[in-house]
Protein backbone atom coordinates (compact mmCIF):
# COMPACT_ATOMS: atom_id res chain seq x y z
CA UNK A 1 0.00 0.00 0.00
CA UNK A 2 1.15 3.51 -0.84
CA UNK A 3 1.60 6.17 1.82
CA UNK A 4 -1.18 8.69 1.85
CA UNK A 5 -1.41 12.26 2.99
CA UNK A 6 -4.70 13.46 4.45
CA UNK A 7 -5.89 16.98 3.66
CA UNK A 8 -8.45 18.45 6.03
CA UNK A 9 -10.13 21.83 6.20
CA UNK A 10 -12.70 22.75 8.84
CA UNK A 11 -15.67 25.07 8.60
CA UNK A 12 -16.62 25.96 12.15
CA UNK A 13 -20.00 27.47 12.96
CA UNK A 14 -20.21 29.40 16.22
CA UNK A 15 -23.53 30.81 17.40
CA UNK A 16 -22.91 34.28 18.78
CA UNK A 17 -24.05 34.90 22.34
CA UNK A 18 -26.09 37.99 21.56
CA UNK A 19 -29.37 38.61 23.38
CA UNK A 20 -31.33 38.95 20.18
CA UNK A 21 -31.38 37.45 16.73
CA UNK A 22 -29.44 38.74 13.76
CA UNK A 23 -32.13 40.95 12.17
CA UNK A 24 -34.94 41.24 14.74
CA UNK A 25 -35.52 41.65 18.48
CA UNK A 26 -36.51 38.04 19.19
CA UNK A 27 -34.60 36.17 21.90
CA UNK A 28 -31.79 33.76 21.01
CA UNK A 29 -32.03 31.70 24.20
CA UNK A 30 -31.88 27.93 23.85
CA UNK A 31 -34.56 25.45 24.84
CA UNK A 32 -37.76 27.54 24.63
CA UNK A 33 -41.08 26.04 23.53
CA UNK A 34 -41.15 25.66 19.73
CA UNK A 35 -41.95 28.79 17.72
CA UNK A 36 -42.19 31.14 20.70
CA UNK A 37 -39.09 33.20 19.76
CA UNK A 38 -40.41 34.20 16.36
CA UNK A 39 -41.69 37.24 14.54
CA UNK A 40 -42.49 38.12 10.92
CA UNK A 41 -38.84 39.07 10.26
CA UNK A 42 -37.20 35.81 11.36
CA UNK A 43 -39.95 33.68 9.83
CA UNK A 44 -39.51 35.30 6.44
CA UNK A 45 -42.87 37.01 5.99
CA UNK A 46 -43.13 39.16 2.86
CA UNK A 47 -42.58 42.88 3.17
CA UNK A 48 -40.49 42.94 6.34
CA UNK A 49 -37.23 44.85 6.68
CA UNK A 50 -34.32 43.18 8.52
CA UNK A 51 -31.92 45.41 10.47
CA UNK A 52 -28.52 44.05 11.51
CA UNK A 53 -27.71 43.63 15.21
CA UNK A 54 -24.63 45.79 15.93
CA UNK A 55 -23.25 43.17 18.35
CA UNK A 56 -22.98 40.67 15.51
CA UNK A 57 -20.44 42.88 13.76
CA UNK A 58 -18.57 43.59 17.00
CA UNK A 59 -18.35 39.89 17.96
CA UNK A 60 -17.24 38.83 14.49
CA UNK A 61 -14.54 41.52 14.46
CA UNK A 62 -13.37 40.34 17.90
CA UNK A 63 -13.10 36.76 16.64
CA UNK A 64 -11.26 37.99 13.55
CA UNK A 65 -8.74 40.02 15.51
CA UNK A 66 -8.13 37.19 17.98
CA UNK A 67 -7.35 34.85 15.07
CA UNK A 68 -5.00 37.30 13.34
CA UNK A 69 -7.34 38.15 10.46
CA UNK A 70 -7.48 41.35 8.46
CA UNK A 71 -10.72 43.15 9.17
CA UNK A 72 -12.49 44.32 6.02
CA UNK A 73 -13.24 48.03 6.05
CA UNK A 74 -16.00 47.41 3.51
CA UNK A 75 -18.20 44.37 3.77
CA UNK A 76 -21.64 43.33 2.56
CA UNK A 77 -24.21 40.62 3.02
CA UNK A 78 -25.57 38.28 0.36
CA UNK A 79 -28.43 35.90 -0.13
CA UNK A 80 -27.60 32.22 -0.47
CA UNK A 81 -30.60 30.57 -2.07
CA UNK A 82 -31.82 27.06 -1.36
CA UNK A 83 -35.09 25.38 -0.54
CA UNK A 84 -35.38 23.49 2.69
CA UNK A 85 -38.13 23.56 5.32
CA UNK A 86 -35.75 24.80 8.03
CA UNK A 87 -35.24 28.01 6.07
CA UNK A 88 -38.53 29.92 5.81
CA UNK A 89 -37.10 32.71 3.62
CA UNK A 90 -35.75 30.11 1.14
CA UNK A 91 -32.43 31.94 1.34
CA UNK A 92 -29.86 32.27 4.07
CA UNK A 93 -28.46 35.73 4.61
CA UNK A 94 -24.71 35.20 4.60
CA UNK A 95 -21.61 36.82 3.13
CA UNK A 96 -20.17 35.78 -0.21
CA UNK A 97 -17.34 37.79 -1.75
CA UNK A 98 -16.77 40.47 0.89
CA UNK A 99 -16.64 38.76 4.30
CA UNK A 100 -15.85 40.69 7.48
CA UNK A 101 -12.54 38.95 8.21
CA UNK A 102 -9.89 37.54 5.88
CA UNK A 103 -6.58 35.74 6.05
CA UNK A 104 -5.76 34.87 9.66
CA UNK A 105 -4.13 31.96 11.44
CA UNK A 106 -4.12 29.98 14.67
CA UNK A 107 -1.21 28.23 16.33
CA UNK A 108 -2.01 24.81 17.73
CA UNK A 109 -0.05 22.37 19.87
CA UNK A 110 -0.09 18.69 19.01
CA UNK A 111 2.01 16.36 21.15
CA UNK A 112 4.34 19.20 22.05
CA UNK A 113 4.79 20.36 18.45
CA UNK A 114 3.59 23.78 17.41
CA UNK A 115 1.78 24.09 14.10
CA UNK A 116 0.20 27.04 12.33
CA UNK A 117 -3.23 26.56 10.71
CA UNK A 118 -4.34 29.20 8.23
CA UNK A 119 -7.77 30.80 8.46
CA UNK A 120 -9.23 31.71 5.08
CA UNK A 121 -12.08 33.88 6.29
CA UNK A 122 -14.69 34.56 8.93
CA UNK A 123 -18.13 35.70 7.83
CA UNK A 124 -21.42 36.41 9.54
CA UNK A 125 -24.60 34.53 8.66
CA UNK A 126 -27.88 33.41 10.15
CA UNK A 127 -28.68 29.98 11.53
CA UNK A 128 -31.57 27.88 10.22
CA UNK A 129 -34.51 26.43 12.14
CA UNK A 130 -34.77 23.01 13.67
CA UNK A 131 -36.50 20.06 12.06
CA UNK A 132 -38.02 17.45 14.32
CA UNK A 133 -39.06 14.11 12.94
CA UNK A 134 -42.47 13.09 14.19
CA UNK A 135 -42.28 9.32 14.58
CA UNK A 136 -46.04 9.03 15.01
CA UNK A 137 -47.28 10.80 11.88
CA UNK A 138 -44.09 10.43 9.84
CA UNK A 139 -44.16 14.16 9.13
CA UNK A 140 -41.43 16.67 9.79
CA UNK A 141 -42.11 19.44 12.32
CA UNK A 142 -40.51 22.86 11.93
CA UNK A 143 -39.39 24.89 14.96
CA UNK A 144 -38.24 28.34 13.85
CA UNK A 145 -36.82 29.55 17.18
CA UNK A 146 -33.27 29.11 15.88
CA UNK A 147 -34.00 30.83 12.56
CA UNK A 148 -31.75 33.89 12.25
CA UNK A 149 -29.77 33.27 15.41
CA UNK A 150 -26.45 34.91 14.44
CA UNK A 151 -23.45 32.76 13.55
CA UNK A 152 -19.92 33.26 12.49
CA UNK A 153 -18.47 30.72 10.10
CA UNK A 154 -14.73 30.29 10.50
CA UNK A 155 -13.19 28.64 7.43
CA UNK A 156 -9.72 27.12 7.78
CA UNK A 157 -7.17 26.56 5.06
CA UNK A 158 -6.65 22.88 4.14
CA UNK A 159 -3.67 22.80 6.51
CA UNK A 160 -4.86 20.06 8.86
CA UNK A 161 -3.35 16.60 8.35
CA UNK A 162 -4.94 14.27 10.88
CA UNK A 163 -7.60 13.83 13.56
CA UNK A 164 -5.37 15.01 16.41
CA UNK A 165 -4.61 18.27 14.63
CA UNK A 166 -8.27 18.82 13.84
CA UNK A 167 -9.25 18.32 17.47
CA UNK A 168 -6.41 20.57 18.69
CA UNK A 169 -7.50 23.28 16.24
CA UNK A 170 -11.10 23.01 17.40
CA UNK A 171 -10.06 23.11 21.06
CA UNK A 172 -7.88 26.16 20.50
CA UNK A 173 -10.66 27.93 18.65
CA UNK A 174 -13.18 27.04 21.35
CA UNK A 175 -10.90 28.36 24.03
CA UNK A 176 -10.44 31.67 22.14
CA UNK A 177 -14.17 32.13 21.54
CA UNK A 178 -14.81 31.49 25.24
CA UNK A 179 -12.13 33.98 26.25
CA UNK A 180 -13.72 36.56 23.94
CA UNK A 181 -17.14 35.73 25.39
CA UNK A 182 -18.70 35.82 21.92
CA UNK A 183 -20.02 32.23 21.92
CA UNK A 184 -21.03 29.97 24.79
CA UNK A 185 -19.44 27.04 22.91
CA UNK A 186 -21.90 24.47 24.22
CA UNK A 187 -21.19 21.81 21.65
CA UNK A 188 -23.93 19.48 22.89
CA UNK A 189 -26.47 22.27 22.25
CA UNK A 190 -24.99 22.87 18.81
CA UNK A 191 -23.75 26.38 19.51
CA UNK A 192 -20.31 25.30 18.31
CA UNK A 193 -20.15 22.74 15.53
CA UNK A 194 -18.05 21.99 12.51
CA UNK A 195 -18.06 20.63 8.99
CA UNK A 196 -15.09 18.51 7.95
CA UNK A 197 -13.78 18.64 4.37
CA UNK A 198 -11.44 15.73 3.79
CA UNK A 199 -9.48 14.25 0.93
CA UNK A 200 -6.48 11.96 0.63
CA UNK A 201 -3.65 11.83 -1.91
CA UNK A 202 -0.61 9.60 -2.35
CA UNK A 203 2.45 11.24 -0.78
CA UNK A 204 4.24 13.27 -3.44
CA UNK A 205 1.15 13.96 -5.54
CA UNK A 206 0.60 17.66 -6.08
CA UNK A 207 -3.10 17.91 -6.89
CA UNK A 208 -5.62 17.42 -4.13
CA UNK A 209 -7.83 14.34 -4.25
CA UNK A 210 -11.62 14.61 -4.45
CA UNK A 211 -13.00 15.71 -1.12
CA UNK A 212 -16.08 14.79 0.87
CA UNK A 213 -17.87 17.01 3.33
CA UNK A 214 -19.32 15.90 6.65
CA UNK A 215 -21.66 18.39 8.27
CA UNK A 216 -22.54 19.40 11.81
CA UNK A 217 -20.18 17.45 14.03
CA UNK A 218 -20.74 18.60 17.57
CA UNK A 219 -18.20 16.87 19.78
CA UNK A 220 -14.42 16.46 19.73
CA UNK A 221 -14.92 12.72 19.78
CA UNK A 222 -17.19 12.81 16.74
CA UNK A 223 -14.67 14.95 14.83
CA UNK A 224 -11.85 12.57 15.73
CA UNK A 225 -13.75 9.40 14.90
CA UNK A 226 -15.21 10.72 11.64
CA UNK A 227 -11.75 11.74 10.41
CA UNK A 228 -10.27 8.32 11.19
CA UNK A 229 -13.23 6.61 9.55
CA UNK A 230 -13.31 8.76 6.42
CA UNK A 231 -9.53 8.62 5.96
CA UNK A 232 -9.56 4.83 6.04
CA UNK A 233 -12.60 4.65 3.80
CA UNK A 234 -11.12 6.90 1.11
CA UNK A 235 -7.76 5.09 1.12
CA UNK A 236 -9.52 1.76 0.81
CA UNK A 237 -11.61 2.96 -2.14
CA UNK A 238 -8.50 4.23 -3.94
CA UNK A 239 -6.44 1.13 -3.14
CA UNK A 240 -9.22 -1.00 -4.61
CA UNK A 241 -9.04 1.00 -7.80
CA UNK A 242 -12.17 3.07 -7.15
CA UNK A 243 -12.76 6.78 -7.28
CA UNK A 244 -13.85 9.11 -4.50
CA UNK A 245 -17.15 10.81 -5.24
CA UNK A 246 -17.67 14.38 -4.15
CA UNK A 247 -20.51 13.91 -1.73
CA UNK A 248 -21.85 14.81 1.66
CA UNK A 249 -21.27 12.26 4.39
CA UNK A 250 -23.60 11.88 7.30
CA UNK A 251 -21.87 10.77 10.50
CA UNK A 252 -23.71 8.41 12.83
CA UNK A 253 -21.91 9.00 16.10
CA UNK A 254 -23.59 6.18 17.99
CA UNK A 255 -22.67 3.57 15.38
CA UNK A 256 -19.34 5.17 14.47
CA UNK A 257 -20.18 4.98 10.78
CA UNK A 258 -20.44 7.60 8.06
CA UNK A 259 -22.62 7.11 5.03
CA UNK A 260 -23.22 9.13 1.90
CA UNK A 261 -26.33 11.28 1.82
CA UNK A 262 -28.46 11.21 -1.28
CA UNK A 263 -26.52 13.12 -3.92
CA UNK A 264 -27.93 16.57 -4.51
CA UNK A 265 -26.26 17.51 -7.75
CA UNK A 266 -27.76 21.00 -7.82
CA UNK A 267 -27.26 21.66 -4.14
CA UNK A 268 -24.26 23.89 -4.69
CA UNK A 269 -25.98 26.19 -7.13
CA UNK A 270 -26.76 28.78 -4.46
CA UNK A 271 -27.23 31.74 -6.84
CA UNK A 272 -25.69 34.20 -4.40
CA UNK A 273 -26.62 37.82 -4.92
CA UNK A 274 -26.21 40.99 -2.83
CA UNK A 275 -28.86 41.37 -0.12
CA UNK A 276 -30.84 44.44 -1.19
CA UNK A 277 -32.51 44.92 2.21
CA UNK A 278 -29.28 45.33 4.15
CA UNK A 279 -26.79 48.16 3.91
CA UNK A 280 -23.04 47.60 3.46
CA UNK A 281 -20.92 47.47 6.62
CA UNK A 282 -18.18 50.11 6.61
CA UNK A 283 -15.76 49.97 9.54
CA UNK A 284 -13.42 52.80 10.49
CA UNK A 285 -9.88 52.26 11.76
CA UNK A 286 -11.06 53.82 14.99
CA UNK A 287 -13.81 51.21 15.40
CA UNK A 288 -11.46 48.30 14.69
CA UNK A 289 -8.63 49.66 16.85
CA UNK A 290 -10.98 50.28 19.73
CA UNK A 291 -12.02 46.62 19.69
CA UNK A 292 -8.41 45.53 19.29
CA UNK A 293 -7.27 47.60 22.28
CA UNK A 294 -9.99 46.13 24.45
CA UNK A 295 -9.55 42.46 23.62
CA UNK A 296 -9.23 40.35 26.76
CA UNK A 297 -5.98 38.56 27.59
CA UNK A 298 -5.76 35.61 25.16
CA UNK A 299 -4.95 32.03 26.31
CA UNK A 300 -1.29 31.96 25.16
CA UNK A 301 -0.56 35.34 26.81
CA UNK A 302 -2.26 34.25 30.02
CA UNK A 303 -0.23 31.06 29.98
CA UNK A 304 3.05 32.99 29.80
CA UNK A 305 1.89 35.22 32.64
CA UNK A 306 0.98 32.26 34.86
CA UNK A 307 4.46 30.80 34.35
CA UNK A 308 6.09 34.10 35.24
CA UNK A 309 3.78 35.49 37.90
CA UNK A 310 2.98 32.24 39.73
CA UNK A 311 6.12 30.22 38.85
CA UNK A 312 3.91 27.45 37.51
CA UNK A 313 5.35 24.75 35.22
CA UNK A 314 4.40 25.14 31.55
CA UNK A 315 2.25 22.02 31.76
CA UNK A 316 0.15 23.46 34.58
CA UNK A 317 -0.16 26.88 32.97
CA UNK A 318 -1.24 25.25 29.73
CA UNK A 319 -4.02 23.22 31.31
CA UNK A 320 -5.30 26.04 33.54
CA UNK A 321 -5.50 28.53 30.68
CA UNK A 322 -6.97 26.14 28.12
CA UNK A 323 -10.41 27.21 29.30
CA UNK A 324 -11.39 30.64 30.60
CA UNK A 325 -13.52 28.91 33.20
CA UNK A 326 -10.66 27.04 34.83
CA UNK A 327 -8.41 30.13 34.54
CA UNK A 328 -11.00 32.27 36.31
CA UNK A 329 -11.51 29.62 38.97
CA UNK A 330 -7.77 29.38 39.50
CA UNK A 331 -7.29 33.13 39.83
CA UNK A 332 -10.20 33.59 42.23
CA UNK A 333 -9.07 30.74 44.50
CA UNK A 334 -5.46 31.83 44.44
CA UNK A 335 -6.38 35.42 45.31
CA UNK A 336 -7.69 34.07 48.61
CA UNK A 337 -5.21 31.37 49.58
CA UNK A 338 -2.12 32.56 47.71
CA UNK A 339 -0.82 29.08 46.98
CA UNK A 340 -0.82 28.81 43.17
CA UNK A 341 0.76 25.38 42.93
CA UNK A 342 -1.71 23.88 45.39
CA UNK A 343 -4.70 25.42 43.56
CA UNK A 344 -3.30 24.18 40.23
CA UNK A 345 -2.81 20.67 41.61
CA UNK A 346 -6.37 20.48 42.85
CA UNK A 347 -7.85 21.81 39.60
CA UNK A 348 -5.78 19.45 37.47
CA UNK A 349 -6.02 16.45 39.81
CA UNK A 350 -8.92 15.15 41.87
CA UNK A 351 -11.19 18.02 40.90
CA UNK A 352 -10.69 17.45 37.17
CA UNK A 353 -11.25 13.73 37.58
CA UNK A 354 -14.51 14.25 39.44
CA UNK A 355 -15.74 16.83 36.92
CA UNK A 356 -14.99 14.38 34.13
CA UNK A 357 -16.86 11.61 35.87
CA UNK A 358 -19.88 13.85 36.31
CA UNK A 359 -19.46 15.31 32.80
CA UNK A 360 -19.84 18.86 34.05
CA UNK A 361 -17.68 21.95 33.72
CA UNK A 362 -15.85 23.64 36.54
CA UNK A 363 -18.36 26.51 36.80
CA UNK A 364 -21.21 24.02 37.13
CA UNK A 365 -19.65 22.35 40.15
CA UNK A 366 -20.87 22.93 43.71
CA UNK A 367 -17.28 23.67 44.73
CA UNK A 368 -16.64 27.41 44.56
CA UNK A 369 -13.19 29.01 44.31
CA UNK A 370 -13.73 30.32 47.86
CA UNK A 371 -14.37 26.76 49.11
CA UNK A 372 -11.26 25.36 47.48
CA UNK A 373 -9.13 28.23 48.81
CA UNK A 374 -10.43 27.58 52.31
CA UNK A 375 -9.59 23.89 52.02
CA UNK A 376 -6.04 24.75 50.94
CA UNK A 377 -5.74 27.19 53.84
CA UNK A 378 -6.75 24.43 56.24
CA UNK A 379 -4.00 22.21 54.88
CA UNK A 380 -1.43 25.00 54.89
CA UNK A 381 -2.21 25.83 58.53
CA UNK A 382 -1.89 22.17 59.52
CA UNK A 383 -5.54 21.95 60.61
CA UNK A 384 -6.07 18.93 58.39
CA UNK A 385 -3.68 16.55 56.68
CA UNK A 386 -3.57 16.39 52.89
CA UNK A 387 -4.92 12.88 53.06
CA UNK A 388 -7.97 14.01 55.02
CA UNK A 389 -8.29 16.94 52.62
CA UNK A 390 -9.06 14.55 49.77
CA UNK A 391 -11.89 13.15 51.79
CA UNK A 392 -13.15 16.64 52.66
CA UNK A 393 -12.97 17.63 49.01
CA UNK A 394 -15.13 14.70 47.95
CA UNK A 395 -17.68 15.84 50.51
CA UNK A 396 -17.50 19.41 49.23
CA UNK A 397 -17.95 18.20 45.68
CA UNK A 398 -21.06 16.21 46.53
CA UNK A 399 -22.70 18.52 49.07
CA UNK A 400 -21.43 22.00 48.24
CA UNK A 401 -20.72 22.58 51.94
CA UNK A 402 -17.64 24.57 52.83
CA UNK A 403 -14.48 22.89 54.03
CA UNK A 404 -14.52 24.25 57.57
CA UNK A 405 -18.06 23.03 58.21
CA UNK A 406 -17.22 19.54 56.99
CA UNK A 407 -14.02 19.34 59.01
CA UNK A 408 -15.80 20.45 62.18
CA UNK A 409 -18.90 18.37 61.67
CA UNK A 410 -16.97 15.18 61.01
CA UNK A 411 -14.26 15.83 63.57
CA UNK A 412 -11.48 15.67 61.01
CA UNK A 413 -9.19 18.22 62.60
CA UNK A 414 -5.65 16.95 62.55
CA UNK A 415 -4.30 15.69 65.86
CA UNK A 416 -1.24 17.73 66.69
CA UNK A 417 -1.37 17.34 70.46
CA UNK A 418 1.98 15.72 71.26
CA UNK A 419 0.79 14.31 74.57
CA UNK A 420 -2.15 12.47 73.03
CA UNK A 421 -0.10 11.21 70.11
CA UNK A 422 2.66 10.05 72.46
CA UNK A 423 0.20 7.89 74.37
CA UNK A 424 -0.91 6.24 71.18
CA UNK A 425 2.63 5.73 69.95
CA UNK A 426 3.57 4.01 73.19
CA UNK A 427 0.53 1.77 72.98
CA UNK A 428 1.32 0.74 69.40
CA UNK A 429 5.00 0.17 70.22
CA UNK A 430 4.07 -2.09 73.10
CA UNK A 431 1.62 -4.06 71.02
CA UNK A 432 4.19 -4.71 68.28
CA UNK A 433 7.44 -5.96 69.83
CA UNK A 434 8.30 -7.88 66.65
CA UNK A 435 8.35 -4.71 64.58
CA UNK A 436 10.60 -3.01 67.08
CA UNK A 437 12.97 -5.96 66.95
CA UNK A 438 12.88 -5.86 63.14
CA UNK A 439 13.68 -2.17 63.15
CA UNK A 440 16.57 -2.62 65.55
CA UNK A 441 17.84 -5.42 63.30
CA UNK A 442 18.06 -2.87 60.51
CA UNK A 443 14.71 -3.29 58.77
CA UNK A 444 13.69 0.34 58.28
CA UNK A 445 10.43 -0.79 56.70
CA UNK A 446 9.11 -1.71 60.12
CA UNK A 447 8.71 2.01 60.85
CA UNK A 448 6.23 2.36 58.03
CA UNK A 449 4.14 -0.41 59.48
CA UNK A 450 4.11 1.22 62.91
CA UNK A 451 3.17 4.65 61.47
CA UNK A 452 0.38 2.92 59.59
CA UNK A 453 -0.94 1.40 62.80
CA UNK A 454 -0.95 4.78 64.52
CA UNK A 455 -2.72 6.49 61.61
CA UNK A 456 -5.27 3.70 61.65
CA UNK A 457 -5.93 4.26 65.36
CA UNK A 458 -6.54 7.97 64.69
CA UNK A 459 -8.47 7.43 61.43
CA UNK A 460 -5.73 9.29 59.61
CA UNK A 461 -6.00 12.39 61.73
CA UNK A 462 -2.64 12.30 63.52
CA UNK A 463 -0.11 14.77 62.20
CA UNK A 464 2.32 12.47 60.37
CA UNK A 465 5.40 14.58 61.09
CA UNK A 466 4.74 14.46 64.83
CA UNK A 467 4.00 10.74 64.69
CA UNK A 468 7.30 10.08 62.97
CA UNK A 469 9.26 12.23 65.34
CA UNK A 470 7.76 10.70 68.50
CA UNK A 471 7.99 7.16 67.21
CA UNK A 472 11.71 7.45 66.52
CA UNK A 473 12.27 9.11 69.90
CA UNK A 474 10.52 6.30 71.73
CA UNK A 475 12.10 3.43 69.84
CA UNK A 476 15.59 4.86 70.04
CA UNK A 477 15.33 5.65 73.74
Amino acid at each position, binding site marked *: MKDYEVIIGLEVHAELS*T*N*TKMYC*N*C*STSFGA*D*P*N*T*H*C*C*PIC*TGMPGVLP*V*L*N*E*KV*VEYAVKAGLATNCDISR*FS*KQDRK*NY*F*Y*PDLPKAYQTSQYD*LPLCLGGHLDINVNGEKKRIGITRIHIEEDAGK*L*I*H*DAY*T*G*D*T*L*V*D*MNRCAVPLIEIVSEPDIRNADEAVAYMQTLKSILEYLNVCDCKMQEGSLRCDVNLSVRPVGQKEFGTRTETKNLNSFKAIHNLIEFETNRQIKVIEEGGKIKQETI*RWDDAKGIGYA*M*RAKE*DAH*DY*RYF*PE*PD*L*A*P*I*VLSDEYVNNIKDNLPEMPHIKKERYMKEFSLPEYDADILTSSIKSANFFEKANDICNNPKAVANWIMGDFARMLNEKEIEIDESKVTPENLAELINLIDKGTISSKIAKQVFEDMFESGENAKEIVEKKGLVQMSDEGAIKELVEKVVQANPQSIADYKAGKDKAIGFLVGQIMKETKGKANPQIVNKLLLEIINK
Partner: protein
Amino acid sequence: MSVSKEDVLHIAKLSKLNLTDEELEMYTKDLSSIVDFANQLSSIDVEGVKPTAHILNIQNVFRKDVMQPSFDREEILKNAPSKDAGCISVPKVVE
Protein backbone atom coordinates in the same frame (compact mmCIF):
# COMPACT_ATOMS: atom_id res chain seq x y z
CA MET B 1 -32.28 33.18 -27.42
CA SER B 2 -30.03 34.25 -24.55
CA VAL B 3 -31.69 31.72 -22.23
CA SER B 4 -31.90 28.09 -23.33
CA LYS B 5 -34.61 25.58 -22.50
CA GLU B 6 -32.03 23.70 -20.44
CA ASP B 7 -31.39 26.86 -18.39
CA VAL B 8 -35.08 27.25 -17.71
CA LEU B 9 -35.46 23.58 -16.72
CA HIS B 10 -32.48 23.93 -14.36
CA ILE B 11 -33.89 27.06 -12.73
CA ALA B 12 -37.31 25.44 -12.47
CA LYS B 13 -35.77 22.47 -10.72
CA LEU B 14 -33.91 24.68 -8.23
CA SER B 15 -37.18 26.54 -7.63
CA LYS B 16 -39.10 23.28 -7.20
CA LEU B 17 -41.41 24.15 -10.09
CA ASN B 18 -42.93 21.73 -12.59
CA LEU B 19 -43.41 23.28 -16.02
CA THR B 20 -45.66 22.09 -18.83
CA ASP B 21 -44.23 22.16 -22.36
CA GLU B 22 -46.20 25.32 -23.12
CA GLU B 23 -44.88 26.98 -19.97
CA LEU B 24 -41.35 25.96 -20.83
CA GLU B 25 -41.72 27.64 -24.25
CA MET B 26 -43.26 30.74 -22.70
CA TYR B 27 -40.68 31.15 -19.91
CA THR B 28 -37.78 30.56 -22.25
CA LYS B 29 -39.05 33.40 -24.45
CA ASP B 30 -39.94 35.70 -21.51
CA LEU B 31 -36.73 35.12 -19.56
CA SER B 32 -34.70 35.65 -22.73
CA SER B 33 -36.26 39.03 -23.34
CA ILE B 34 -35.71 40.00 -19.68
CA VAL B 35 -32.06 38.99 -19.87
CA ASP B 36 -31.67 40.78 -23.20
CA PHE B 37 -33.16 43.90 -21.69
CA ALA B 38 -30.78 43.75 -18.72
CA ASN B 39 -27.88 42.97 -21.02
CA GLN B 40 -28.11 46.46 -22.49
CA LEU B 41 -26.15 47.46 -19.40
CA SER B 42 -23.20 45.48 -20.76
CA SER B 43 -22.76 48.04 -23.53
CA ILE B 44 -22.04 50.78 -20.98
CA ASP B 45 -18.42 51.61 -20.28
CA VAL B 46 -17.93 50.98 -16.55
CA GLU B 47 -14.18 51.48 -16.53
CA GLY B 48 -13.26 52.86 -13.10
CA VAL B 49 -16.76 52.41 -11.65
CA LYS B 50 -16.83 50.45 -8.40
CA PRO B 51 -19.22 47.46 -8.15
CA THR B 52 -22.45 48.49 -6.44
CA ALA B 53 -23.10 46.80 -3.10
CA HIS B 54 -26.35 48.66 -2.50
CA ILE B 55 -28.44 50.86 -4.73
CA LEU B 56 -28.98 53.51 -2.07
CA ASN B 57 -26.16 55.57 -0.72
CA ILE B 58 -26.43 54.18 2.80
CA GLN B 59 -24.17 52.17 5.09
CA ASN B 60 -24.03 50.85 8.66
CA VAL B 61 -27.71 50.53 9.42
CA PHE B 62 -27.65 48.75 12.77
CA ARG B 63 -29.92 48.14 15.74
CA LYS B 64 -29.13 47.72 19.43
CA ASP B 65 -29.06 44.21 20.87
CA VAL B 66 -32.15 44.69 23.04
CA MET B 67 -34.75 41.98 23.35
CA GLN B 68 -38.44 42.60 22.79
CA PRO B 69 -41.37 40.21 23.08
CA SER B 70 -41.83 37.87 20.13
CA PHE B 71 -45.17 37.20 18.49
CA ASP B 72 -47.70 34.80 19.97
CA ARG B 73 -47.21 31.36 18.57
CA GLU B 74 -50.82 31.25 17.34
CA GLU B 75 -50.12 34.35 15.29
CA ILE B 76 -46.89 32.92 13.84
CA LEU B 77 -48.54 29.62 12.89
CA LYS B 78 -51.77 31.21 11.66
CA ASN B 79 -50.98 30.84 7.96
CA ALA B 80 -49.51 27.35 8.15
CA PRO B 81 -51.59 24.85 6.16
CA SER B 82 -50.73 22.15 8.65
CA LYS B 83 -49.49 22.32 12.23
CA ASP B 84 -48.79 19.95 15.08
CA ALA B 85 -47.31 20.26 18.58
CA GLY B 86 -46.68 23.98 18.23
CA CYS B 87 -44.81 23.49 14.95
CA ILE B 88 -45.46 23.83 11.26
CA SER B 89 -45.91 20.32 9.92
CA VAL B 90 -44.42 19.54 6.51
CA PRO B 91 -44.08 16.35 4.48
CA LYS B 92 -41.25 14.16 5.69
CA VAL B 93 -37.83 15.49 4.74
CA VAL B 94 -35.52 12.65 3.73
CA GLU B 95 -31.90 13.15 4.63
